[in-house]
């Protein structure tokens, strides 16, 4: 019997028992849809939390901490596999000011290597990267830090800040002398680039980024305005190191993190956090799938019943087919195909319904939750339900597998039908 004829045969049987098959399909659909929707909540929460973690930082960034981080050590990191760049920023520790057209800002400043910054993904909103030590890049919020301290404002009001374009302007850099009466040397620094604003609204970047080559000169200049350090007292360092290693791809972050740990560094990367999250949510999702599977198992009782009924009802027909020359394998296949059909149709409908429920949940639940919390229209940023293709695949496999298993015994029973008894069978 050709496969096409087998399908036609099965369809003819299904048509004759439309209502019963429909009810069984309905049970299979409900079981499978329950499984998918339940597990989709696990996937949704996982996605929400993972997105939250990933959006707060650069995902391929590995932060490295150590007592002493020298340029030699960071150069060695650059040689590691999968490392795209190593940015070794040195944060200026003494108090310093920048002045521009009468506006003054207390400085947060870094010395850095701009070529490494550029490969690491440091992006400029305007201008270009510095080419010589006298040129700098400023953060997107730098202008807000420049304020006119001589201006007179009413109580409670803020000082006016610099409103004009910064690009191409030259700021004057000087230290706050530690020695009384000393006057700091001044450095004119030309703003050639403005850093792209950070992704998060609440993040603020008022930093000033200077070239590493400027550091020795400034360190000397600062020493000139500082008192001699007392005996036995350790001097404050001029800079604090901040090292970030940038990995080429997300999947290599873990390897690089481990390698750095092995080298004795304290390391933090998003992979650490993601890994813990993944383990937790894997367990949660497995649990939800397990609970959902119970629903499918309940549906399988229906399939078993329907198929057993079908076999009993068709005893005579099975007998005739066997008498005419249908082999046991064919009989078994025809009945297995029927339970598989129930499984396939049930799963297909369930997938469609699940996507609908998932979509509706994501649309409606935030509104309800927001209303319940009394916050007006605030975006929760929570995804309640996500159905990835893997979940569809897992649910389909479980549903189809269960349908086939529950159809197995009735199908075996059909093959064992005794021809002689079946031909005498009246129904």
């Amino acid at each position, binding site marked *: *019997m050709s496969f096409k004829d087998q399908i036609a045969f099965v369809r003819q049987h299904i048509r004759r028992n439309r209502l019963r098959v429909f009810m069984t399909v309905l049970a299979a659909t409900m079981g499978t849809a329950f499984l998918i929707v339940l597990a989709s909540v696990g996937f949704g929460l996982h996605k929400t939390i993972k997105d939250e973690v990933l959006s707060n930082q650069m995902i391929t960034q590995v932060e490295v901490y150590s007592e002493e981080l020298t340029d030699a050590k960071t150069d060695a990191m650059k040689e590691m596999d999968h490392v795209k760049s190593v940015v070794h920023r040195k944060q200026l520790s003494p108090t310093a000011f920048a002045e521009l057209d009468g506006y003054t800002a207390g400085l947060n400043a870094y010395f850095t290597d701009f070529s490494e910054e550029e490969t690491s993904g440091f992006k400029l909103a305007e201008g270009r990267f510095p080419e010589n030590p006298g040129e700098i890049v400023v953060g997107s919020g730098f202008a807000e830090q420049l304020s006119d301290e001589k201006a007179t404002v009413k109580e409670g009001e803020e000082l006016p800040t610099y409103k004009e374009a910064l690009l191409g302007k030259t700021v004057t850099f000087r230290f706050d002398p530690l020695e009384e009466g000393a006057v700091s040397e001044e450095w004119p620094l030309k703003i050639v680039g403005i850093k792209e604003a950070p992704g998060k609204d609440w993040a603020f970047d008022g930093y000033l980024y200077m070239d590493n080559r400027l550091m020795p000169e400034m360190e000397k200049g600062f020493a000139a305005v500082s008192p001699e350090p007392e005996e036995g007292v350790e001097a404050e360092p001029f800079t604090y190191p901040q090292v970030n290693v940038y990995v080429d791809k997300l999947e290599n972050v873990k390897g690089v993190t481990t390698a750095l740990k092995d080298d004795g560094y304290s390391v933090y990367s998003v992979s650490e956090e993601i890994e813990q999250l993944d383990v937790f949510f894997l367990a949660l999702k497995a649990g939800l799938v397990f609970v959902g599977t119970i629903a499918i198992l309940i549906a399988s009782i229906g399939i078993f019943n329907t198929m057993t009924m079908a076999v009993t009802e068709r005893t*005579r027909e099975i007998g005739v*087919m066997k008498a*005419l*020359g*249908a*082999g*046991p394998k064919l009989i078994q296949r025809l009945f297995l195909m029927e339970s598989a059909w129930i499984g396939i149709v049930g799963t297909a409908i369930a997938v469609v319904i699940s996507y609908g429920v998932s979509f509706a949940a994501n649309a409606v639940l935030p509104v309800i939750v927001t209303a319940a919390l009394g916050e007006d229209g605030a975006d929760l940023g929570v995804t309640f339900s996500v159905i990835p293709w893997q979940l569809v695949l897992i649910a389909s496999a479980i549903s189809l597998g269960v349908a086939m298993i529950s159809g197995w015994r009735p199908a075996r029973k059909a093959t064992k039908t005794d021809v002689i008894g079946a*031909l005498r069978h009246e129904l």
Partner: protein
Amino acid sequence: MIEVKGLAHSFRVGKKGKETEVPVLKGLTLQAADGEIVSIVGRSGSGKSTLLHILAGFLQPDRGQVLVDGTDLTAMNEAQRAAYRLDHFGFVFQNFQLMPGLTAFENVELPLTLKGVPATERRRKVEELLESTGLSDIRSHYPNELSGGQQQRVGIARALITEPPIIFADEPTGSLDSETEQDILLLIQSLNRTYGITFVIITHDDEVAAIADRTYRMHDGELAEGGLRHVI
């Protein structure tokens, strides 16, 4: 050519563990030559139906052999016997045994479908056969819309469709009135003469047995003394 050698079979009846053996066939030897109509006549309980079931391969005998053109049916497993039936045997049953969900056309088509014959060829063959057996008018009817005689004609057409060398008929006229019975018997005779098909007919009716070239009488699982009759 069907040869039956020393065929014996018994049924186990009663509760499990306390079964008793009831012998149904007690060492039969008989044969049917190609192109013959052979009838096996006997009362209820004589074992004639069991004999047919074994001949057709529905049942494995305890002892003995059934050779069809030299092929031993009793040495085959269930699947092999089913495949052999599909290729070599046709069946006509007392209560017709048509599929209730299939039309007359589809019922006749069923053995070809089981054999995996392509749909276009199937349709052509069934079309031809229905035409020649005068069933074209009822082709779209379901079995419950047909008279007994019509149902049996469809049943016979179904047995013929695969052009088998042998057709087994189990009380083919048992559910029909005497006039229809005559029609069916004439049909069997003409098929036998035209196509040289061997018929093995099980019956309790001497009138049916009368069309046979060779008749075996069965009594209590044995061939009755002097039961063999040749018609020339």
